[in-house]
């Protein structure tokens, strides 16, 4: 990346309480079209096969949706079969909530998770969870705010259900043993999220997600729910009548494929940050590779808004080992400026996330950024200016940022931090109804993997709400299938359709999905897992 070298930029930087306002700003739509990654023409393709054939989709996502499967019928010979009522795929907040509710309703539950239970984006959520509980707030206002933020491209019924659930979601979390910050009278404290009309975010310090996740994880671990960790799902199973009937799990511990025959499957696989769309760093955890989208799509589930992603403006850009780490929006709300390589403000820092992100990208693309010398770069988040205006503010309100600074060897009170937009959230996903049910019978989808709840832009605090609200709903409805007779025959026959369609559409069969792990983790070359690769491939290799 071209730009002022970081050493030079740092030498030229001087803290100042006030700085001149940025120059004239282009229209948001123009700015987005020119610089927001969603609008990169290269990044968009039209899907050739599957339920969303003809729809626009991000190129990298499309590549996976239209890829061949990781396994073949031949790979399943001798694989053990386990029976259960409900199979939850994914061990984040959504999956745990669904599993707990399903089990409480009498269903036998297995959670299969790619990493460990709780290794998820949930655990990293800092801000809080939205629930209209204050006197001057109503579920209707929560609804209206969510619709407005979504740019109207949203499933209104889902939003109505979610905002009406919200207070009871908080009660349920307290009953699982989750703590929230309380005032002197024992009432829940609330704070305001950007773009909302009331103080509605309840929280536990800036560790809301961590507190939620460890409580849910503990509730699962102390219960009889079976947890399979290091067990990514690589394919769903289908019945002859087109139901989802379980999944093929690749056990990284036993290094074999295992079949789970289930009466209902709940996909709670999270987002796509680790696909590094458009080569962006990400704030997401290691396992966020969009596996659920791929699995659901192959079985015929409809997806939506797959060209819309949230890039959070303030991802750490330096030091490199922490690249992508989120710096909370609160720092900009507190008045931190953004400065380019010339030490100038270039955007109104309190514009919506997509606008600010696009402006940062523009500065860097046009050579006005700050270069780290190792290919990356960014702009200054001018934290010292805030400290000058409000001495002591960081220590009191942003302890986690000070902590982050220590890890970087930077004191944000005296030195600016280098930031660049970071891939944060998948706005769209699998289409669901109010119970988390997809258009494939027996298949549920919840949390970040699902779509329609946030439209094309998500509000802070609505994600933690989404996962518990729809997690509980899907858990309850999936458990309702426990009394079904079960499926006579399970197979991966739907893969033949996929291959047929791909071939007819002239698509190559040389890539495969789901991704499971980002390429740099070298999973595909790990000899420990050779046994999990396709028989045909292994033979080819020998």
């Amino acid at each position: 990346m071209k730009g002022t070298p970081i050493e030079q930029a740092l030498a030229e930087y001087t803290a100042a309480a006030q700085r001149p306002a940025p120059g004239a700003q282009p229209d948001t739509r123009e700015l987005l079209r020119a610089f927001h990654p969603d609008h990169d023409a290269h990044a968009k393709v039209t899907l050739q096969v599957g339920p969303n054939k003809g729809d626009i989709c991000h190129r990298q996502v499309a590549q996976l949706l239209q890829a061949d499967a990781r396994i073949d019928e031949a790979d399943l010979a001798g694989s053990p079969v386990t029976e259960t009522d409900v199979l939850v795929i994914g061990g984040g907040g959504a999956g745990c909530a669904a599993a707990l509710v399903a089990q409480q309703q009498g269903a036998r539950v297995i959670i299969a998770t790619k990493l460990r239970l709780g290794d998820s984006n949930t655990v990293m959520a800092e801000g809080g969870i939205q629930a209209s509980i204050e006197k001057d707030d109503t579920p209707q206002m929560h609804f209206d705010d969510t619709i407005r933020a979504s740019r109207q491209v949203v499933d209104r019924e889902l939003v109505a259900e979610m905002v009406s659930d919200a207070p009871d979601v908080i009660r349920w979390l307290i009953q699982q043993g989750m703590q929230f910050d309380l005032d002197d009278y024992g009432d829940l404290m609330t704070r305001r999220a950007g773009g909302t009309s009331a103080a509605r975010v309840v929280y536990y310090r800036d560790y809301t997600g961590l507190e939620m996740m460890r409580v849910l994880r503990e509730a699962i671990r102390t219960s009889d729910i079976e947890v399979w960790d290091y067990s990514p799902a690589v394919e769903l199973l289908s019945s002859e009548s087109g139901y989802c009937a379980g999944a093929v799990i690749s056990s990284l511990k036993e290094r074999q494929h295992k079949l789970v025959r289930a009466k209902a499957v709940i996909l709670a696989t999270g987002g796509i940050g680790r696909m590094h769309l458009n080569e962006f760093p990400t704030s997401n955890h290691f396992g966020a590779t969009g596996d659920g989208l791929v699995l659901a799509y192959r079985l015929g589930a409809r997806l939506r808004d797959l060209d819309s992603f949230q890039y959070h403006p303030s991802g750490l850009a330096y030091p490199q080992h922490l690249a992508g780490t989120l710096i909370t929006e609160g720092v900009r709300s507190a008045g931190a400026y953004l400065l380019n390589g010339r030490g100038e403000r270039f955007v109104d820092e309190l514009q919506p996330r997509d606008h600010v992100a696009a402006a940062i990208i523009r500065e860097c693309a046009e050579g006005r950024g700050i270069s780290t010398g190792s290919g990356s770069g960014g702009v200054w988040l001018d934290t010292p200016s805030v400290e000058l205006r409000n001495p002591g503010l960081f220590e009191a309100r942003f302890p986690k940022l000070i902590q982050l600074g220590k890890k970087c060897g930077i004191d944000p009170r005296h030195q600016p931090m280098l930031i660049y937009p970071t891939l944060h959230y998948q706005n769209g996903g699998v289409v669901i109804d109010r119970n988390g049910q997809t258009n494939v019978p027996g298949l549920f989808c919840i949390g970040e993997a699902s779509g329609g709840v946030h439209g094309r832009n998500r509000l802070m605090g609505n994600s933690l709400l989404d996962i518990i609200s729809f997690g509980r709903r899907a858990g309850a409805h999936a458990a309702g299938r426990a009394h079904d007779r079960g499926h006579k025959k399970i197979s991966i026959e739907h893969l033949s359709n996929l291959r047929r369609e791909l071939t007819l559409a002239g698509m190559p069969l040389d890539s495969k999905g789901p991704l499971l792990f980002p390429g740099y983790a070298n999973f595909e070359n790990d000899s420990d897992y050779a046994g999990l690769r396709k028989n045909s491939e292994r033979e080819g290799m020998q």
Partner: protein
Amino acid sequence: MTQRPLNQVLLHPGCRVGPELDQWLSGHGGEGLARACAAPGAIIDAIREAGLRGLGGSGYPTHKKWSFVAQQQGTGDKYLICNGNEDEPGTFKDRLLMAETPHQIIEGALITALACAINRIVFYINPDLGLAIDNMHQAVQQWRGTPPLQTAADALGRPIEMEVVASSGHYIGGEETAAIESVEGNFPFPRGKPPYPAESGVHGCPTLINNMETLANVPHILRNGAAWYRDLGLGDACGTKIYCISGDVLRPGAYELPMGTPLSELLYIYGDGMLVGKKLKAIFTGGPSNTILTTTDLDVPLDFESVAARRSALGTGAMIVVSHGTGIVKRVTEYVNFFAASSCGQCPSCKTGTYYISMLLSKIDTGEGTRADLESLINLCKILPGSGRCHLLDGAVKVLDSSLYHFMSEYEQALN
């Protein structure tokens, strides 16, 4: 092969009088102490010339250890801890000495006290060794108020206090500084060094700690002379050693033999060979450092230097014999589990390290292990040693490292 003289000194029938002091004194008992009282200043020289070494496993020259304590000036108390916490795998010699020959230990302790100007003697004994602690109690009681003890006190110039203290029974309580904590009434947590016990031990006083077998030799050296003791050993080695042979042999037991007796003799003459139908695979040397000897080491003289030259360690002189069909990985897992269970908890690298090694070993042993697991074990052998306050972790790593060296193919075959 020639038959060596068996049980010449410590396990000689004349010493095995149990707690009866009269019987002890009616034999040669008391003669060593009398010589010591006559010339306390000559004791350390005699011990040096005899070449006596720490027989609890360290092999450290005894006279050096004594000299550090003897040099400590001042009029305050000085302590001797007679270490009978014996708990190492395969080791059962000290319990035999304490139960059957308590008086040679007590006499040895008194001579040691004279040599180092020590006035407080603590017999620190594992409470799980019932007969040993009972007989030591009785034996100590019988010394009280006797003329030989009075003579020793006169030679020292102040009264000598002797007491029997039950240890906590934790293996780690055998570590020197842990023993000091235990004698003070605390949990046996090893202390950081410095200060060394010779400067600051029990209640801050100079403290000497010796193994029971080491002390038992002392009266005999004083009575018969350093040259006699040296000549007992074979080659360059001095004195005798009580070897504890156990495992798949016909006659397991404790045999006192010249230091430096070849392993093959211990195994085939005294142990009377392998059990019927069993074929020798390896020998784990017991003690603080379990290491492995193999069939190519049968000729090794069992003394500190010779065993060390085979990448192993004599330790307490325990030889645990295993035969073909015994899984080395499983055996090592059990030893590491022993150390893991014994870790006091102060150093996470030790507690978590032994736990983690044990987990990887079990995984490999049960056919679940991967090459990465094996690589991790090899790596931990490099990273962990020396990171604990005491040497417990080093012991666990040694047995692992030794098994990896000799039986790598067995590990590799067990991989999934």
